[in-house]
């Protein structure tokens, strides 16, 4: 059976290529039909904000790529409720679906469930 991989994405979308490079790992895994999941935590939850205006900073908007994850077979998407709360973001109305919001205890269990973990 294929080993599962959890990608923890912890950087804001416009802080450099980190968000893009975390996402690329997930998309590549999905393309190979591998069991991959993404967890958005810390500043990574900013990637889930709606109505971003990427062109203001001469960047490409990642939202469409995040929304394409399920088309690539990456359907296990999680967000950290503590990180959302700290940044005044509501768990409802985020840009990516389906998305499961987890508390710290659930995140510990999630990390434990995956064979390998990569954090960016």
């Amino acid at each position, binding site marked *: 059976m294929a080993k599962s*991989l959890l990608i923890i994405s912890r950087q804001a979308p416009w802080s450099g290529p980190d968000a893009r*490079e975390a996402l690329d790992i997930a998309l590549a895994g999905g393309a190979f039909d591998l069991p991959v999941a993404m967890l958005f935590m810390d500043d990574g939850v900013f990637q889930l904000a709606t109505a971003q205006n990427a062109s203001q900073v001469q960047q490409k908007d990642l939202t469409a790529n995040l929304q394409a994850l399920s088309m690539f077979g990456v359907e296990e998407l999680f967000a950290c409720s503590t990180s959302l709360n700290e940044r005044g973001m509501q768990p409802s109305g985020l840009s990516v679906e389906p998305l499961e919001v987890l508390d710290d205890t659930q995140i510990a269990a999630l990390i434990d469930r995956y064979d390998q973990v990569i954090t*960016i």
Partner: protein
Amino acid sequence: MKFAIALHSPAHAPSSRRALLFAKAALAQGHEIVRLFFYQDGVHSASGNVVSPQDESDTAAQWRDFVTTHQLDGVVCIAAALRRGVLNAEEAERYSRPAANLPAPWELSGLGQLHDAVQAADRLICFGGP
């Protein structure tokens, strides 16, 4: 045990040196390294153009020696490398850039190589990163 090692930091970062020490220790204890995968700023750890001051260690050169000596599979992510100006001769020519700075034994390849290593290894160990 079979290890896959991912490095996300450049040669001047302490985590690049730590990754190298870990890799050496793993082999010394009889473990196997299925692949080294340099991603994000880790592509700079494979650059052949790093010049360290004489009284400082040259981690990029040490990585090259280590991979060559042990005939390891050393892969540099091509998308991350192009974005950061780390090119082998073929890519420098393809994109009409004035210099190549990724010498042997490093190979440029895609993220599929990371997933392949994750599948083959008992443990993925990551160093560095944001």
